[in-house]
């Protein structure tokens, strides 16, 4: 006799739980708990990391990311406007730039920056500037596409209303379109920031002094000096201190913009008249 639909879904759920329990138990049996405790939960090794892991590494990660994000946002906005420009060469340059930096691993960009710029320009920026430029260039390529999508998502009626009030093209962009575009793209931009936070771990390639260490480099140094994986675990937790609140923020923003469709009357109206 066939099971009722409800009964069957109960059985399927039961099987799913059983598989989960079996996998967890097997892993627990196979794992070497003594080793794991010694490697990851070494209290003395953990103690050695403080307070620098917070006061230097976490703070530096935040500073590097913020610098890169700010610079990337500005460049990204310029690129987005270039992509939407009616001047062909602007569009082409922006497209090439975006495809290049999105297609090349960030690691290579950092190496090129760390070693190439001093060679090319006979001058060495301080590390903070180099980080800001290299992280910003990588981030800007991604942000440009996000910003462009945001600008294009602003209903055309907003633009027409502004122009009909006598605002110039540029004034309309600055006063009406870009502020609305940024509201639309706040969730994806927050995700960009999370990705950039993690990408900031690559700047160890620039050769940092100890007080310039960020989390990943600091954790690896800890690994070398203590021979324990505990510093790595701590560094990972520190990343989560940054990224989880951002992730929650992003989700909340997404709910807010998704829930109350600010622009629905305009967009439906346009479809009717266009």
């Amino acid at each position, binding site marked *: 006799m066939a099971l009722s639909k409800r009964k069957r879904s109960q059985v399927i759920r039961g099987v799913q739980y059983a598989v989960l329990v079996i996998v967890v138990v097997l892993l627990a049996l196979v794992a070497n708990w003594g080793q794991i405790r010694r490697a990851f939960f070494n209290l003395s090794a953990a103690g050695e990391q403080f307070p620098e892991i917070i006061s230097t590494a976490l703070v530096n990660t935040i500073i590097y990311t913020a610098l890169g994000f700010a610079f990337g946002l500005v460049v990204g906005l310029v690129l987005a406007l270039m992509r939407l420009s009616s001047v062909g060469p602007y569009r082409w340059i922006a497209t090439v730039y975006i495809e290049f930096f999105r297609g090349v691993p960030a690691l290579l960009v950092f190496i090129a920056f760390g070693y190439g710029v001093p060679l090319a320009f006979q001058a060495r920026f301080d590390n903070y500037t180099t980080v800001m430029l290299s992280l910003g260039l990588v981030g800007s390529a991604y942000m440009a596409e996000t910003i462009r999508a945001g600008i294009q998502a602003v*209903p055309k*009626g*907003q633009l*027409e*209303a*502004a*122009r*009909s*009030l*006598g*605002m*110039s093209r540029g*004034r309309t962009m600055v*006063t*009406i379109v870009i*502020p*609305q575009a940024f*509201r639309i793209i706040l969730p994806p931009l927050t995700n960009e920031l999370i990705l950039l936070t993690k990408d900031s771990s690559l700047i160890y390639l620039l050769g940092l002094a100890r007080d310039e260490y960020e989390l990943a480099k600091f954790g690896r140094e800890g690994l070398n000096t203590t021979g324990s994986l505990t510093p790595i675990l701590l560094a990972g937790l520190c990343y989560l201190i940054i990224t989880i609140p951002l992730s929650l923020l992003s989700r909340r923003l997404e709910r807010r913009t998704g829930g*109350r469709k*600010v*622009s629905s*009357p*305009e967009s*439906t*109206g*346009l479809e*009717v*008249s266009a």
Partner: protein
Amino acid sequence: MTAQTQAQDPDTGLAVEITGLTKSFGSLQVLRGIDLAVRPGEVVCIIGPSGSGKSTLLRCVNLLEEPNGGTVRVHGTELTHPDVDIDAARRQIGMVFQSFNLFAHLNVLNNLTVAQRKVLRRGQAEAEQVARANLAKVGLAEKAGAMPAQLSGGQQQRVAIARALSMDPKVMLFDEPTSALDPELVGDVLGVMRQLADEGMTMLVVTHEMQFARDVADRVLFMDGGVVVEEGPAAQVIGDPQHERTKSFLSRVLYPTHQGPSD
């Protein structure tokens, strides 16, 4: 009527003067030579079937669409002239859209002040004063702090009218201002427009509201296929149409129930 307006000197008196206006989108010719002269204070309603070019005509009057041929003059300024400062010219032409188009990120008051400050360079205090006066005029003084999304469609449209009026326009264009509204909200918006007409505002109104056209319009234009098929006093064009196309359009609009289930 046309003869009378054409007899006037182009630079004297006319609020809007359109001659030989043509507009194509690609290979689709939407306007096929429109002539129209509107005196100051006149209310002209434009009616016609969907796709006949009503919106396009209106949008050519403030150059939201670039005409392919012909001229558009508003109070003596030829907007179609290559050297004209179109942003400056648009300041004297208010436009109200079917979909309201209030700035979604600004509250009502800022919707009304932003262009006054950025375009007319009015100070905050003056802009706010003008804005509040116009909000009161459309009956929404208490909504100054609201966001557009918190307003009903009828309220949004009245704010949109107040926003356009805050620029002290000499001409107002309305493109089906009540078509996106629930029936019970239409009256408020039409009421504001009536009041505006009574105050002597020059108005070009694309509408399907035949009662409004009868009551308020000095003149009605019936458009079809990119030309003005028939024009004259409202009572004449709506009450006693001469052309077959006008008759069949009006019978569809005035007695829609005779047309079966589809619109």
